[in-house]
């Protein structure tokens, strides 16, 4: 663990927030988990799965389906979306961030199905695909990058107007996914370590010097609390999810081009406070299929099971958060999207062929009756499950 490093004036930071009428977030739970609101427990509520979708610029959009009705809808965006998050205090509001390096995000109202806002990156900033709300919904944190330097930035936006009101460091290069910790004030950030520049698209410019970290940052001060690395320096920490007890599950992508050997590396790991990151082991026969790539991760808290998806391996894999043992795996073509169903019983998997499958989170068996197929949809990397009033 490295010592804290203050790069932001705490006084200036606090003044800025107070002047905007902000308060320190009071509510617990991550922005993705709204079960504590009772919002998704009503039998009258409708479950929706949302995802960026589309194969080309003509079709890029935010799509959603209602599994019970087996219908799908979408809003066209003109840009390729990536991660999504829901406002915990206004659950009808869902944000979709553009895929890196992007410049836009949108907000839709899930009640009306309409896009009601679009927001843009500031000059010399570009979006990195993910973000999350503060627990009180007053702030939207966006993962961005300083275009000129590649340094990771967490921009702070007003939760309602989406206007940018500040920013702090991600404490790394190439930040990607981020989540709020159960203490309501700490963000855990996956700094992938890969330097890119919009002028050269997604080409990695720093294979030899890449440095990927898992950073914990205090949202009140912007200070780095701690940072952690995995043993393989060429493994990029890119996606993560947080369990109720603060255990962080991270998905890795090994940069084989930067390595001089073909030795397989674990692609899943967990981090618990006060400990080093622990890699999750799997049989070599499975690891080799993953092609060095895990694309998404999601924790199911009641079963203490964490799921990872690898579209390059056509596999979803499941480990136990406490004994760290592989519990099972499921073959699914081009699987990447991953969410928890609103009944809190299933992992929801999506793929780019427009298919949805649900895996019982306790038995880790597929409920085949819940299969859905939307052949004209191409579900992109991530999926969000929400509940909306009927």
């Amino acid at each position, binding site marked *: 663990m490295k010592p804290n490093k203050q790069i932001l004036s705490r006084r200036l930071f606090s003044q800025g927030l107070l002047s905007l009428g902000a308060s320190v977030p009071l509510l617990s739970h991550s922005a993705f988990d709204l079960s504590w609101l009772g919002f998704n427990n009503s039998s009258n509520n409708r479950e929706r799965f949302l995802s960026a979708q589309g194969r080309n610029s003509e079709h890029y959009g935010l799509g959603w389906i209602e599994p019970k009705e087996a219908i799908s809808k979408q809003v066209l965006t003109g840009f390729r979306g990536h991660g999504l998050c829901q406002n915990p205090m206004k659950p009808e509001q869902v944000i979709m961030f553009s895929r890196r390096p992007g410049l836009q995000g949108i907000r839709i109202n899930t009640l009306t199905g309409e896009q009601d806002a679009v927001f843009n990156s500031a000059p010399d900033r570009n979006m990195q695909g993910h973000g999350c709300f503060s627990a009180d919904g007053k702030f939207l944190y966006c993962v961005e990058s300083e275009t000129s330097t590649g340094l990771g930035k967490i921009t702070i936006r007003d939760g309602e107007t989406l206007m940018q009101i*500040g920013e702090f460091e991600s404490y790394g290069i190439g930040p990607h996914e981020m989540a709020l910790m159960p203490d309501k004030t700490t963000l855990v950030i996956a700094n992938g370590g890969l330097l890119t520049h919009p002028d050269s698209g997604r080409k990695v410019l720093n294979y030899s010097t890449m440095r990927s970290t898992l950073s914990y940052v205090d949202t009140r001060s912007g200070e780095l609390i701690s940072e952690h690395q995995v043993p393989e320096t060429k493994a990029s920490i890119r996606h993560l999810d947080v369990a109720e007890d603060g255990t962080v599950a991270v998905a890795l992508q090994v940069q084989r081009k930067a390595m001089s050997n073909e030795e397989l590396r674990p692609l899943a790991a967990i981090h618990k406070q006060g400990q080093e990151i622990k890699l999750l082991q799997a049989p070599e026969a499975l690891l080799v299929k993953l092609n060095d790539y895990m694309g998404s991760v999601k924790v199911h808290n009641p079963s203490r099971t964490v799921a990872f998806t690898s579209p390059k391996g056509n596999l979803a894999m499941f480990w136990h958060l406490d004994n760290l043992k592989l519990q099972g795996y499921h073959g699914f073509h081009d699987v990447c999207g991953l969410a928890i169903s609103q009944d809190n019983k299933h992992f929801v998997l999506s793929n780019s062929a427009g298919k949805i499958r649900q895996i019982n989170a306790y038995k880790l068996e597929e409920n085949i009756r819940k299969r859905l197929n939307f052949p*004209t949809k191409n579900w992109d990397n991530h999926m969000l499950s929400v509940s909306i009033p009927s």
Partner: protein
Amino acid sequence: MLQTKLSQLPKFGFFAVSLLLTACYSDTDSKVSGGYTELDRAIEQVIDHTIIPTMDNMLVKSEKLNSLAIQFCDSRNADNLLLLQDQWKATNQAWYRLLPFTLGPLETTDALSESAVSYIDSHRDRGNDYKTSIRTDITAMMALTTEDLNATYFSSKNFTITGLLALELLSFERSDDQDQNNNAILAEYMNQSLKCDILQGQSVELLRRIELAQTGWKINYRDSGKSYRDLLVNKQLESSFTGIGDPDGTGTPAFTRIIVSMQEYYDYLGKRNVTLNSAQISNALWPALSQSAIITREVLSGTDTTTLSLYQLMSNGYKPDVEFVKENIIAFEDSITNENTADIISTAKVLDGNLKREIPEALNIALGLNFNDGD
């Protein structure tokens, strides 16, 4: 040092947010998969006119290899050794013709076990060279008895010490000292009859695995009562194999399974030291690699009986891509003719890219948005 941007806040407001109200586009997709398309027809012809005949050819060659192993052991002489060696080369060529199609019966049926292809060609999966393991195993077997060396014994062997490589070492070198002179090889067989038991045991085991794969393609796949061909063409794999982790239940379309298998083969050629490790004792790699080029061209252009080829479908707006791919196959063939390892690797990588991008795009098919272009 980078500072907070609170001091710049007023500037952000200018461009950061704009509120929009836009129309919501909706559709109500069917839950039923699409019907039989032109691409489905073309792929069905690739399967029937190219892949299955290639599988059949491998079976024929393996059967003959086995019969010539028996013939050699019945009558151990220089002529029969030469026939055995020539047939190993022919079988290896048939294998390289089939190698781009490591799907279905040649792929694993359980993600945790080794695939059938590994038992036939141990180098294919991870590029490891197992010659030393095989030589050690042959030495160990020479201390056993004929009764020990039964079919069950060979069927239970690890993939690292079976298949074409084991048969190559048994056919092209004296086990005692790796002497590659045929007189030395023949003398060893004359003096140690147990080596013939090993040769025949490995030959039978190879044939058994090829027969299993061919039966799977044409008659009965994984006790489903249906051939892999029918399950694939009729899009029934996903509904037939629903077990957790079942690789046949992934829902991967036939086109994707075939093209990804071919792409992974060229990725393998580009990454692994095939020209340094494969068919080296027999000195028979280059003609075998030529078979891969021939079959790749056939998949795309079709055969005499093909009525709708992938090239024809691609030509609908993507003629430059068709020409590009054709040129790249020729370049790959040239590198084989010139026996140039560096060119093999570079041209294989180009074809790998063609199979990932140009060909699927020209056919308006996504191999997998997340597979190809994750984040």
